């Protein structure tokens, strides 16, 4: 199963973005996933559809736009895109400072969101993701090297 650590690449990290509204932000997030080849272009349309049906705001200034369940077939490979909006985006009344766009298969979707949510629940990490001007820090926070602790003593799977 893919971990968040495998999912975010430097090309998908965009800092200092601006968006007219949340649908503009979701459009940019979709474009980022298309640009890195993670999804078919139609997946970006499905992200708009999902956003219109249900806000992807999750709290702490973050939204996690992703496609509808039906659009999972348009995912070529699991990936994240990170878009930071330092001036904020009005997200149906909430203030969003960063979007983490998700492209994941049905099997991976819940575990990817779980791992991501655990990062965003850390106040210091969340604050840094909202405000950093260093793309490397985003990669370090969302795609850290595997920790050498008791939970990861199993040999790493290699493909």
């Amino acid at each position, binding site marked *: 199963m893919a971990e968040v650590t495998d999912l975010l690449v430097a090309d998908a990290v965009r800092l200092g973005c601006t968006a007219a509204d949340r649908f503009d932000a979701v459009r940019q997030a979709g474009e980022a996933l298309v640009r890195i080849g993670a999804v078919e272009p139609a997946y970006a349309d499905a992200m708009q559809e999902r956003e219109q049906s*249900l806000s992807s705001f999750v709290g702490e200034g973050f939204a996690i736009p992703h496609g509808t369940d039906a659009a999972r077939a348009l995912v070529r490979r699991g990936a994240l895109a990170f878009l930071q909006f330092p001036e904020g985006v009005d997200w149906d009344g909430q203030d969003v400072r960063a979007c983490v766009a998700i492209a994941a298969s049905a099997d991976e*979707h819940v575990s990817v*969101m779980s*791992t991501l*949510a655990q990062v*965003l629940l850390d106040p210091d990490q969340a604050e840094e993701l909202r405000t950093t001007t260093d793309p490397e820090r985003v990669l370090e926070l969302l795609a850290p090297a595997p920790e050498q602790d008791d939970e990861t003593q199993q040999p790493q799977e290699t493909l």
Partner: protein
Amino acid sequence: MSTETTVEEQVTVASKVGLHARPAAAVVKAANELPTVVKIGKDGRVVDARSMLSLLSLGAEHGDTVTVSAEGPDAAEAVAAMVALLASNLDEAS
């Protein structure tokens, strides 16, 4: 001895998609309307059901067993309400 009553009950997540999207939104909304703080736990991780991020962090999928708990005089009522919600199909909830 504390006079606080802790009520705890296990329930299987019924929603097809698991605890995210609409089902999670329904849980957060209900938790915020209950008279006492309800917590949901899975695999040793126990979180406040009023927070979407906290719920998502559980990674609870369809068929997973979660533990619902609450404290205080309203605990039994609150836990029963949340258990009933989790045991129902929330996929079409709005």
